[in-house]
């Protein structure tokens, strides 16, 4: 019996390795292209100082990041459908959930990889201009708390870039999951990209309504959530709220909490759900 279990585990690992390797071979051009463009853009903006470094970070981890998410999410399933290799893939002894999960995992890894490399390129560009300071973060955070920390960090360019990078990457990865799962139904890449653009715009509009509501009522997001305003509940649980929190520093107190909640709701839970061997909902949604 233990032999059997071990054998089955080894086989499962081989299947996963095969799925991931294929994904990497098929999708790596997206990673290389995305990395070159985003890194070049961020490094260029920071080196040339056409805009301030905070503005550059907002641009890269905001709109450019969202385009990158659409770029990574639209391709993996729809391109296989358009090429009709999807049918070859799903007749293998592997479940559609596993296929979807492998593609999702590769997308997240590529997204995070691109953002890490872009941030390093940005830091290099800053250092090339002589910006070298890296203040004592932990001491300030311990004495002044998270809200003051966010404001304070913006006065230190390299530190603020790193903060933006961490929060922005988590936010984009959170948005990647629902977008990817929704686009897994698209029949071709053009339709998927179009769908991704529309969905992203819709979520951003939704967020703006939520934020302005929270601003007008003057309440902090978490308090408003507790007092059960449905708009704001949606806002705090939306996949890109960490990013929006950081550009609305008034509410940064709840940043760590929101980050954790978002990661659980938008990454851990879908991962667990889709990964179950018999997620009928996913099979039904993705179809054949």
């Amino acid at each position, binding site marked *: 019996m233990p032999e059997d279990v071990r054998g089955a585990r080894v*086989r499962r690992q081989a299947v996963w390795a*095969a799925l991931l390797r294929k994904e990497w071979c098929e999708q790596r051009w997206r990673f290389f292209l995305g990395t070159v463009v985003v890194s070049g853009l961020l490094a260029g903006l920071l080196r040339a100082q056409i805009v301030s470094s905070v503005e550059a970070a907002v641009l890269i981890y905001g709109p450019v990041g969202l385009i990158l998410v659409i770029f990574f999410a639209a391709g993996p399933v729809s391109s296989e459908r358009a090429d009709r290799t999807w049918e070859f893939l*799903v*007749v*293998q*002894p592997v479940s559609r959930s596993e296929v979807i999960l492998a593609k999702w995992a590769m997308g997240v890894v590529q997204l995070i990889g691109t953002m890490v490399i872009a941030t390093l390129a940005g830091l290099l560009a800053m250092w090339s201009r002589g910006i070298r300071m890296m203040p004592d973060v932990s001491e300030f955070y311990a004495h002044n708390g998270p809200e003051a920390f966010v404001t304070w960090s913006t006065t230190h360019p390299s530190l603020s870039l790193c903060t933006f990078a961490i929060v922005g990457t988590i936010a984009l990865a959170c948005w990647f999951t629902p977008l990817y799962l929704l686009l897994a139904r698209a029949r071709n890449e053009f339709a998927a990209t179009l769908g991704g653009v529309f969905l992203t715009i819709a979520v951003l509009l939704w967020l703006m309504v939520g934020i302005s509501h929270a601003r007008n009522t003057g309440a902090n997001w978490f308090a408003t959530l507790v007092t059960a305003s449905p708009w704001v509940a949606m806002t705090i649980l939306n996949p890109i709220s960490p990013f929006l929190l950081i550009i609305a520093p008034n509410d940064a107190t709840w940043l760590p909490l929101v980050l954790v909640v978002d990661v659980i709701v938008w990454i851990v839970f879908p991962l667990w759900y889709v990964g179950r061997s018999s997620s009928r909902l996913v099979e039904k949604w993705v179809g*054949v």
Partner: protein
Amino acid sequence: MNDSRVAIHVENLRKHFGQRQVLRGVSLDVMAGSIFGFLGLNGAGKTTLIRILLGLSRADAGQCSVGGIDPSVDALGVRARIGYMAENQTMYGWMRVGQLIEWVSRFYPSWDRALAASLRDQMRLDADEKVGALSKGQTSRLALLLALAHRPGIVILDDPTLGLDPIARRDLLRDVIGQLQDRGATVFFSSHLLYEIEPICDRIAILHEGRIIKCEAVDELRENVKRIVLKPADAARAPDLPGVLDFRAQDGQWSLTVEGVESVRPALTSISRGGLTVMDLNLDEIFEAYVIGRREVPHA
């Protein structure tokens, strides 16, 4: 159902897509070790049934089992134990032949490397060639290799020769027959061309508009269905007989394709001037009579 001699069991399977009833209660049994021909025009529901057998799609009603496993319960178990080859299979064009074989092998616990290598030699496939650069014939041979190299007990071929030119079709069929003959595997061979599977099948089922309209041993079918040509005494009155699949009148002569010759012989003899001519039919003509002739059968 638990009979181990039954490799594929299908019972009253139904499936609809929107308003369209694709399968309207299909039942059939495929005996272990036999070669079963599954015939139907394009769009008859062949692929839908196969998708259900592979656990890719769920039936609305009815049951099925493949090698004793219910595909709606353990689809992966079914897929690991059968060999499947689709119509017009498209594989990863960017992979090389050897790479693709290696990649697919990861999914099957029972993959036989030596067999895969010898099949590759026999099928004259170059391991270093890009899959995308293969001809259609080579692509189907590669798909056949992938379907057989894990030594499956049951092989499902879904119209494997669709879209091949006559030479490639003949080559592929020769490979299919050569590889399967002495392996003792059960073969479920779906096709829209009867002459293609006639020489190799033990039994055939004809699927038409979502129903099995005939399921019989090939010899019995050939024995049972004949064409009768006669000169009628009264040409104005078309015969109203059971078992007539196809009826054509030309130049004062009637040509009928009938099922169960002996049962209609007395009635036909009585209305003919001069005797009956009974002709053998090949399976294509029989298939045509069942599927196409059906629409033209004179109604009482």
